[in-house]
């Protein structure tokens, strides 16, 4: 056999394959620019009002309004495993915002995660959810955003870990995770449920926090609503795996989504506070639909006996506890720092709070939410009335926080110890 000739054949095939792959990759990664528009169309008020409601349901301001004085001007840094991404200016400013974006460009960004000029957007922007919005809803959102006051605010530079600064790589993420098939209702469910299902998936994108992510940062669709995370807070499972120590009624869930607090359940903390802020401003019927859908999943959690069903202060550690000293430290902190408010049960003011055996953070499979709550507390949104829990970061040492969390986990929730608790406390305290 003539070896060099075979090599030449193989070489040619490899080269051809490489060229084909490069073409395919290019086809995947490259997007054309859409011509900038020069005149802004006008919109009727009904469309704008619907768009305003959708913007609330879609939580746009969470990322795009870090400064309340400059709505939608962007600039919020978001930590991801791939680096720090900053939200962009989506006011209709011609130079630094989306003033020159046609409806086509806006639609493409929402459905495909592609900017007007063709560059790919990082999926910190949840276009993999918005892609399933109806065109009518996208039209309404466009009307809303194009009629906001224009604010001059240039985009901030991102700080990505190599090689994720190379945006075209996102195209491969899209291949895996961008499912732009139309959202389908479930004919077996009510209209209200389906409205909730649509809003939850395509607009409010609950799964972005409440479904776990894969290593590549996409949703793990084999485990929908099994629990996820947001900004280092644990977002609990909303299905049969719900860690909530007491079942939720539909009414409680609705009240919670509108106000951030419901009887017998912990107040919304961390990123969920922003969700509540948005939903409290959205159409109440849409929130009712969301709570119908959410409740249908939460209601699948099996009834179980938990200490939440018992009244009274949390107990002292048992004399035979293998970790007695730490538990006693934790108990003393509970008795001397927490019990003053948390033993009282909720009252009108902030000095009387939920008995801790009912607090879902103690039942989470992950201690991060509890640590954040203890460290940062819960504060109402800027300039709005609400409830208050103070933060203890400078009051308790890391060791004390760990002991308190360990005690609460065991004697408040009766759950097995978190194996990574001390690491989580250290990480939360790292500057």
């Amino acid at each position: 056999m003539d070896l060099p000739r075979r090599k030449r054949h193989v070489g040619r095939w490899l080269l051809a394959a490489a060229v084909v792959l490069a073409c395919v990759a290019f086809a995947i990664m490259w997007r054309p620019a859409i011509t900038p528009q020069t005149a802004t169309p006008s919109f009727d008020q009904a469309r704008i009002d619907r768009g305003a409601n959708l913007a609330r349901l879609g939580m746009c301001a969470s990322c795009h309004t870090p400064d309340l004085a400059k709505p939608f001007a962007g600039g919020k840094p978001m930590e991801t495993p791939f680096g720090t991404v900053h939200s962009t200016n989506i006011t209709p400013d011609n130079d630094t915002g989306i003033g020159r974006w046609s409806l086509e460009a806006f639609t493409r960004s929402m459905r495909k995660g592609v900017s007007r000029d063709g560059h790919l957007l990082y999926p910190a922007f949840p276009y993999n959810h918005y892609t399933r919005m109806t065109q009518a809803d996208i039209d309404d959102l466009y009307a809303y955003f194009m009629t906001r006051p224009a604010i001059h605010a240039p985009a901030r530079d991102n700080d990505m870990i190599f090689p994720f600064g190379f945006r075209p790589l996102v195209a491969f993420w899209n291949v895996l995770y961008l499912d732009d098939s139309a959202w389908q209702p479930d004919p077996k469910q009510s209209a209200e449920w389906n409205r909730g299902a649509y809003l939850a998936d395509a607009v409010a994108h609950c799964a972005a926090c409440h479904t776990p992510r894969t290593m590549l940062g996409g949703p793990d669709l084999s485990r929908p609503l099994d629990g996820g995370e947001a900004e280092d807070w644990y977002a609990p499972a909303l299905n049969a795996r719900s860690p909530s120590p007491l079942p939720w009624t539909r009414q409680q869930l609705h009240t919670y989504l509108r106000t951030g607090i419901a009887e017998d359940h912990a107040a919304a903390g961390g990123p969920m506070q922003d969700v509540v802020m948005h939903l409290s401003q959205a159409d109440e019927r849409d929130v009712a639909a969301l709570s119908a859908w959410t409740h249908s999943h939460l209601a699948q959690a099996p009834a179980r006996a938990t200490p939440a069903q018992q009244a009274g202060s949390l107990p002292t550690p048992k004399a035979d506890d293998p970790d007695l000293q730490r538990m006693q430290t934790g108990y003393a902190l509970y008795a001397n720092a927490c019990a003053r408010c948390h033993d009282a049960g909720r009252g009108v003011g902030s000095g009387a709070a939920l008995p801790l055996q009912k607090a879902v953070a103690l039942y989470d499979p992950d201690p991060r939410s509890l640590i954040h709550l203890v460290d940062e507390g819960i504060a109402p949104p800027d300039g709005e009335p609400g409830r208050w829990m103070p933060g203890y970061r400078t009051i308790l040492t890391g060791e004390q926080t760990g002991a308190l969390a360990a005690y609460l986990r065991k004697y408040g929730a009766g759950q097995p110890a978190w194996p990574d608790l001390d690491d989580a406390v250290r990480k939360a305290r790292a500057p």
Partner: protein
Amino acid sequence: MTTYRLQVNGKQHAVDTDPDTPLLYVLRNDLELSGAKFGCGLGQCGSCTVLVDDQPAMSCLVPVSSVGRRAVRTVEGLGTGDKPGVLQQAFIDEQAAQCGYCIAGMIVQATALLERTPRPTDAQIRAHMSPNLCRCGTHMRILRAVRRAADVLAKQPAGAKR
């Protein structure tokens, strides 16, 4: 009642009190340090702010039994009427007080900022001071006083006392 050893403003104290007594009451009643004030007891207003290991903490929320060996500093430890500290002098120079009830807390809160961030921007000062409430509306002067102190400190050699 238990005896707790506390280090406050560089001095050791032994205090007999209940373990859940907030540090604020211990400072004011047992140690007769009136600087930290009762404003709300809920951690919402900052009138009770002290430094615990150089971090600002609301003393109305700190159980005395949890302080341990950590160093507590109050406004009294930052200077006296005869020898005011840099921040205290800046507040006097700006006449940054109306009723003055919140001011000790403001000074302690600002101390933590200037010790960590000697050249703060105006935005940083505002954000850092935001846990502290002032009802009289003295905010503009308080901000000027913190700025003034920062400017004074910027001219001093490194390691100078705040």
